[in-house]
Each structure stands twice: as structure tokens, then as C-alpha cells.
């Protein structure tokens, strides 16, 4: 359950961003991205958020999670395939000559504050 420490870190980071913006107020919406290849479980993130957000400025926040896919580029057949999970061969031709791009990151995208 490393999702718990990820959410703890997220809440801390949101607090810092809000303080830096010079605005007070509670967060109404929070947008984050959890890449499909990040090894992080989105359901566990939601669960941890439900437990950790109360008593913070995120108590009423609507958590929106985007799950960007990765792209597998194959040198052999030149296919570019969007993938949901880690692959070791090209899903099109089966070649091992592939590079994976994107889908790895955990990002805090944006924070919406109550006006």
C-alpha cells in the first residue's frame, strides 16, 4: 500500500501550492494523473484519499484522476501502439525491439479553489 504515502505526499504538496498562490480557501477540485505504467493502483489512491483528506483543506475536494496510457514504439514494424500495461514485445508484430514512452508519471495537474 505505497498509495498511502503517495497521497500523504500529494496532500502536503497541494497545501504548499495553495499557500504559495497566496489564496485562502478550500479545494473544490483536484486533478491528478496516474500513468498506467506507474505501478500505482488508482482504487487504492481513492481509498487513501478518502481516509486522509478530511481535516485538511482537501476535505470537500472532488478528486479527478486521469490515467494516461503509454506508447510502445516498435523498431521492427514501426507500429506505435497505446498500451495499458507493461509489455516486453510489440503487441503488433511480437518483436522485442521496442521502446516505451510515457505512462510512468504521477502528476499533480491542477487545483481548483473555492472562489
Amino acid at each position, binding site marked *: 500500500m505505497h498509495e498511502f504515502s503517495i497521497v500523504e505526499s500529494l496532500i502536503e*504538496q497541494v497545501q504548499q501550492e495553495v499557500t504559495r498562490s497566496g*489564496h485562502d480557501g478550500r479545494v473544490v477540485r483536484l486533478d491528478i494523473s496516474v500513468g498506467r505504467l506507474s*505501478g500505482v493502483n488508482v482504487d487504492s489512491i481513492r481509498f487513501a484519499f478518502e481516509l486522509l483528506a478530511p481535516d485538511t483543506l482537501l476535505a470537500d475536494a472532488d478528486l479527478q484522476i486521469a490515467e494516461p496510457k503509454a506508447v510502445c514504439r516498435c523498431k521492427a514494424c514501426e507500429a506505435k501502439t497505446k498500451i495499458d500495461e*507493461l509489455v*516486453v514485445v510489440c503487441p503488433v508484430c511480437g518483436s522485442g525491439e521496442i521502446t516505451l514512452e510515457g505512462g510512468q508519471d*504521477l*502528476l499533480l495537474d491542477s487545483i481548483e479553489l473555492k472562489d
Partner: protein
Amino acid sequence: MKIIAAKKILRANEELAGKNRAQFNEKGVLVVNLVGSPGCGKTTFLEALVARLDGRAAPAVIEGDLASTIDAQRIEKLGVPVVQINTEGACHLDATMVAAACDALDLNRVDLLVIENVGNLVCTAGFDLGEHLRIVILSTSEGDDKVAKYPTIFQKSDALLVTKTDLVPYGDFSIDRVTADMKRLAPGARLFQLSARTGEGVQPVADWLLGKCRRREGRLGG
């Protein structure tokens, strides 16, 4: 009012890991993050490794476990400086814990610091501790399908140690399958086969690490 942040969520950990790494570089310490399942033989490998450093590098160990000082006691018996971290439930070490543990070590007297992570093939993959090398252990009794089933940790490792090779005759472990999966996932990673129990294959790992120690600092500890 919308704030566009567009920042990595584990930035705090990454920043601290960067600070750890800078400190290790300054002190000339080669740092290894040793990961693998519970019971794969991380501590047993460390015991075998220490015996083969032959005084050519001064080791130290940070032990990460949910509870107990069982591992730290084993390392202490070898006369190696050791700090035990008890995560009290957390499934991985993070850069903060490692920074705190380093305060309890005299890094000026250390050439090779091995951080034995919590036994876990999943969560340990996401947290940079400030190490130079991540080494993953897979024991033959765990099965030859684990590289394919837990790809993230293997993909992010600099070396794979296949341990408990003395048990191969009693099971159906295929080193070829592991080698092929590693080649696809982490073509640049080194692969070693060893049995810490018999000692076979441990010396090449020790020599590889000693070579890295020397390259980092040009300094021989002892």
C-alpha cells in the same frame, strides 16, 4: 480560482533522494538499494558478500523491515556498522528514512553502503532513496515467471541476482526464461547467479561492486 501545478507527486521524495545522493557522492560512498521478496535471501546474500569484500572496501548496512532487529543483529555479528529502520507497517523505505538512518552512520568511514529494503517486489519500485545502483534479488524457489509478473521493479534495476541456485535441482526453475525476460525488460542490467548458502557465484558480485567503488572515488577503504 485554478492553480495549474503540473508537478510530480513524489517530488518531495525525489528532492530528498537527490540530497542523499549528493551527500553520498561527497563522501565517496557507493550506495546500493537491495530489493526483493521476503525470504528471497537479501540478508543471507549480504552476509556472504561482506565475507568476500576481503577488506578491500568498508561496508555499512541499513536494514529496512516492518518490525524487529533480527536482520540488524545478523549484520552486527559480522562487525559491520548497521542501522535498523522499522517502518511500522509501511511497505517500502523512502528517502526521509534513509536520510535519518545515515545520520546514525559515520559515512566518512564507509565505501559501500547497502540499503536492504523492505521485502516487496511492488512498492519499493516507486521510491528513489538516493542510491547509485538498484539490485533486485530473485530466488529460484520463487519461480521463473516473476520477472514477467512484476516487471516494474526488474525494469528499473541495474542488476539481477538469481539466488538459491543450489535449489534448482529440486524444482523447475528455468534460468533461460528469466534471462530472456530480463533482456527484453532491462537489456542493460547485469545478471548474476549465485548461492549465498554454498558461496558459489558470490565473488563475481563482490568484484563488480568493488570495481564500482574504486571507480567512484579511487579510494580503498579498510
